[in-house]
């Protein structure tokens, strides 16, 4: 009995120790309202308060995860984009605030209050200021061999013809009711060049950045699905079997002079294309000069990978439910695929036209590589060519129009920027 008494007393003392502080604070704050506020602040509560569109966006991000992880469609970019989409659509997380970039401007004054700024807002500044696409272009330049283009300069024409998709889509988008700036941004999907599309859209129509980036990268990943039927419809079996002449060897001097000449010439003629072309050629000069191997390797690997993460996640962040779930997005996805198809067709048709006059026949299949999905489009030309003639190797021939397409789409972006910007 005495022991039980002692035991009860100790329990009472312990309870008193724990409860007393709560009783003291209970006098100052209302516990009930605090708990209710906590519950209301959770994402689940916000989902039930009419934010159900976020659930659809989370499902869309899951679809992109599936395409990236299971189907391996451009996973390097699609995965960060999908994750950015997931993060930005989590209610209450406050990682991205579109109002900070409203009207196409960065509202720097609002960045002062750190409580109103999310992590993705800071990362998105790199897109908004046009930094990430240019850094990516340095890496692309360092990974690109312009040798096949220099060996067969006629490839430039095929790269130029493939840009018809951009301008035809520009007209199509205008007809559908988009503004000039929006139509220009949608048209650039036809160039099949992700960084260029992001760069131009961030300058002309930042509101459409999410849908345009998703469309551009999705279609680039679908090149092996989209292009072969177009190539087969527009060419005959005989044309697909054409074996092209062996390319000449290009000297190192030519490869070194080329990026410098292109930068000077293009930038003087079209200053608005200078950031993209300049960065592309800087990367290429690092590669070809052979004196800055460390820098060349860095821009090809670490720098490009880091930038890809930031670019992907911040582009994904722009796909808020309000910006993505509308008829505009659907229209962009439909026009985008048309732009892409027209670009591919443009290159093939010009190659066929050139065959009417040239002595050394061109296999028209390399024309479709004029869209700048490097090197996927060139690989598709190789595969379709080998289906027709297993002894035909078109890969290096197709790399010419392919890299010409990169220059062509950057030039087209510069033109659209100077007219519509």
């Amino acid at each position, binding site marked *: 009995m005495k022991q039980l008494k002692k035991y009860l007393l100790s329990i009472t003392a312990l309870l008193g120790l724990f409860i007393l502080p709560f009783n003291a604070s209970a006098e100052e704050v209302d516990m009930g309202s605090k708990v209710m506020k906590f519950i209301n602040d959770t994402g689940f509560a916000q989902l039930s308060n009419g934010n159900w569109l976020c659930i659809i966006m989370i499902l869309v991000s899951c679809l992109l995860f599936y395409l990236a992880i299971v189907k391996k469609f451009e996973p390097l970019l699609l995965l960060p984009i999908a994750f950015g989409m997931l993060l930005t659509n989590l209610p209450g997380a406050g990682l991205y605030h579109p109002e900070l970039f409203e009207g196409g401007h960065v509202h720097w004054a609002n960045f002062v209050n750190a409580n109103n700024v999310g992590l993705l807002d800071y990362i998105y500044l790199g897109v908004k200021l046009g930094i990430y696409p240019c850094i990516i272009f340095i890496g692309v330049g360092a990974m690109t061999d312009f040798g096949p283009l220099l060996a067969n300069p006629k490839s430039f024409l095929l790269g130029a013809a493939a840009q018809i998709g951009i301008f035809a889509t520009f007209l199509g988008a205008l007809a559908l009711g988009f503004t000039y700036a929006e139509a220009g941004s949608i048209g650039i999907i036809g160039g099949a060049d992700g960084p260029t599309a992001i760069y131009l859209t961030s300058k002309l129509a930042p509101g459409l950045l999410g849908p345009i980036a998703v469309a551009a990268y999705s279609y680039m990943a679908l090149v092996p699905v989209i292009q072969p039927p177009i190539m087969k419809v527009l060419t005959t079996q005989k044309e697909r079997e054409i074996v092209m002449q062996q390319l000449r060897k290009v000297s190192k001097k*030519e490869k070194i002079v080329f990026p410098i000449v292109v930068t000077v010439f293009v930038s003087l003629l079209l200053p608005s294309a200078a950031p993209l072309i300049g960065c592309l050629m800087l990367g290429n000069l690092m590669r070809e000069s052979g004196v800055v191997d460390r820098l060349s390797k860095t821009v090809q690997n670490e720098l490009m990978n880091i930038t890809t993460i930031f670019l992907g996640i911040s582009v994904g962040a722009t796909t808020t439910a309000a910006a993505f779930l509308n008829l505009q997005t659907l229209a962009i996805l439909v026009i985008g695929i048309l732009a892409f198809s027209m670009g591919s067709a443009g290159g093939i048709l010009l190659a066929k036209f050139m065959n009417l006059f040239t002595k050394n026949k061109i296999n028209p299949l390399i024309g479709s590589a004029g869209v700048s999905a490097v090197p996927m489009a060139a690989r598709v030309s190789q595969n379709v060519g080998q289906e027709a003639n297993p002894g035909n190797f078109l890969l290096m021939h197709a790399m010419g129009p392919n890299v010409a397409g990169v220059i*062509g789409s950057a030039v087209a972006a510069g033109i659209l920027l100077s007219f519509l910007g």
Partner: protein
Amino acid sequence: MTMLAINWGYALLVTGIGMGTVFLLLVILIWIINLQTKITERLEDQVKTEPSVVAPAVTTDTHPTPHEQAAIAMAMHLYFDSHDEEPHVITIQEVERRYSPWSSKIYSMRNLTK
């Protein structure tokens, strides 16, 4: 209504000038590349066709060449029949290293489970 609201003249102008500029610029680049190739080939041909007359080796350097130095050294060695005298004492200098987990071998080895 939307179709009528658009200034199609301007849109077609942008398209025409845009496509034209892309073609013009890339055609000029073709011309530049061809010119660059011709110049490079001509320079290389010039180097090849230059007479391969080897100029007489005129030098003001009075130092012996490495070959001459080697020959002189060998001659002196044979003449004097000399070589270094060695003490035949082996010394081992003990190097004391302080223990640091950064340089520890234990941490750099993988302990595989059996």
